[in-house]
């Protein structure tokens, strides 16, 4: 139905415009009745307000720590910029807000670099709540693995695992703000960002952050897709000189990094 598509697209475009043009508003209003208690302008404003409130609230839910860091007014200004640049593309509001850090790309300051990293970390941390947890490859599976033909073994990282390499050391502030906002157990790790990257994943219902050397990231990015054991041996052991295959596998298994599936 072209007419319906046109009229719905027009209203959608109006609702998602931060400052609709007079022409846009007039075209819409011309198609609406104006013989009742609610004028078309007021009616349209109600829908614009509903959309704005829904999306800003979703961003507040997705970035509570960023909100505390920036303060209410500054956060709301960034939120309004975001909602009018990045429309919601899915039904689930819990998934709205990815890419908030792109706002800081356009700014050119040390703070914007920090905020870009901070919001990426917060978003990834927040989304872990929605991840479905797969079964871990456990120590009990290790012996079975070592008996198999190495060429047939495919290792995969946990399906919830996300790899982040950040430019700034956001973690102390992240931890500090988290401790006042969240009831989860303290993340048991120290962060040194000089040459390390983050692995964020879910295990036993808890969100976790682990550290790896940045130079391991390309290998880990491939392990996320599945990597044969021989390749694992070649890449991983070359980085961890003096480590046996069994030790290397045990290291990854004990950290609960590997998926059984």
């Amino acid at each position, binding site marked *: 139905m072209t007419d319906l598509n046109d009229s719905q*697209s027009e209203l*959608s475009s109006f609702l998602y415009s931060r400052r609709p043009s007079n022409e846009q508003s007039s075209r819409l209003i011309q198609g*609406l009745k104006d013989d009742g*208690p609610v004028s078309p302008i007021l009616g*349209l404003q109600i829908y614009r307000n509903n959309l704005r409130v829904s*999306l800003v609230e979703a961003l507040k839910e997705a970035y509570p720590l960023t909100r505390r860091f920036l303060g209410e007014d500054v956060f709301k200004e960034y939120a309004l910029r975001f909602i009018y640049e990045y429309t*919601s593309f899915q*039904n689930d509001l*819990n998934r709205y807000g990815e890419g908030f850090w792109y706002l800081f790309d356009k700014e050119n300051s040390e703070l914007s670099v920090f905020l870009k990293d901070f919001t990426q970390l917060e978003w990834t941390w927040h989304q872990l709540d929605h991840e479905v947890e797969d079964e871990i490859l456990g120590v009990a599976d290790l012996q079975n693995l070592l008996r198999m033909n190495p060429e047939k073994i495919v290792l995969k990282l946990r399906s919830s695992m996300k790899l982040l390499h950040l430019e700034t050391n956001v973690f102390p502030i992240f931890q500090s703000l988290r401790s006042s906002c969240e009831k989860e157990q303290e993340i048991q790790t120290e962060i040194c960002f000089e040459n390390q990257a983050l692995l964020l994943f879910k295990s036993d219902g808890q969100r976790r952050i682990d550290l790896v050397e940045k130079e391991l990231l390309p290998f880990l990015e491939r392990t996320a897709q599945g990597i044969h054991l021989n390749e694992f041996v070649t890449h991983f052991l070359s980085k961890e000189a003096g480590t046996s295959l069994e030790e290397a596998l045990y290291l990854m298994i004990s950290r609960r990094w590997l998926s059984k599936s």
Partner: protein
Amino acid sequence: MYLGGSAFARNPPEGPLEQKPSPISGAGLSLRECHFSQVIEKSPPVPWFEILADNFLNRSPRQLRDLEQIRSDYPIVFHCVGMNLGSASPVDKSYLKQVKVFSEAFKPEWISDHLCWTEINGHFHHDLLPLPYTSKIISHVTDRIKTIQDFLGQEILIENISSYIRFKETEMNEWDFFKEVSVRSGALLLLDINNIYVNSVNHGFKPEDYLNHIPRNRVRQMHLAGFEKQNEVLIDTHGHSVAPVVWNLYEKALEMLGSLPTCLERDNNLPNFENLLDEIKLIKARMEIDHD
């Protein structure tokens, strides 16, 4: 028994619709997740709950355990927002598949959604946007509902929404549009009494006229909620108790339509759980008056 949405809609019976006995009766509650633990711990005397299905479609089995516990103790219905019944976009079968899988796991007595549109060209508005009441839109929406019902394998309930704009191209009253979509698609009606009242004030009609034109045999459930008054406009916020004027309208609806299962909705400005239970008692008291 579901005969297939298309087949059922071609020959809608004029008399009472055949309805299988249902555990959904009396005054229920639209249950928010923040109240799950109280329901599990205290087993409140609520005969059934309405679950906002879209909030749970992407959850892991671990995250659904509380809902499983509630389901084992109470009958439930699903209330969706994502079917996008009136959109010009194609029917979202991936969404319907999620609803179907969720429904097969949790076995709600029925599934409902709103007679509106929520998405176009991939842009979601997280709001219930209105449709013009025209014969062309009736045909369009009817086809979509039939497709959805065929996919889900059951009739759905469609709910009337509150609206803040009206289209010049509209050819008929809202209640005639609502009724006609129901009859032609086979979908049954979820009558939101608060929305009728809100629209009657905002668009200038008598709410009793709406009730007078709704066929009794097509209504399966009712909703009650609160509104907010901003200047002279009523906004359907679901953030207040049911207003006295809406209680009056509800009593008239009970006289005209019978004591149908009625769900209290409260989404915002949530009071404590006991306050909600008190409001449910008010629904129950009105339902127990002999209306037949």
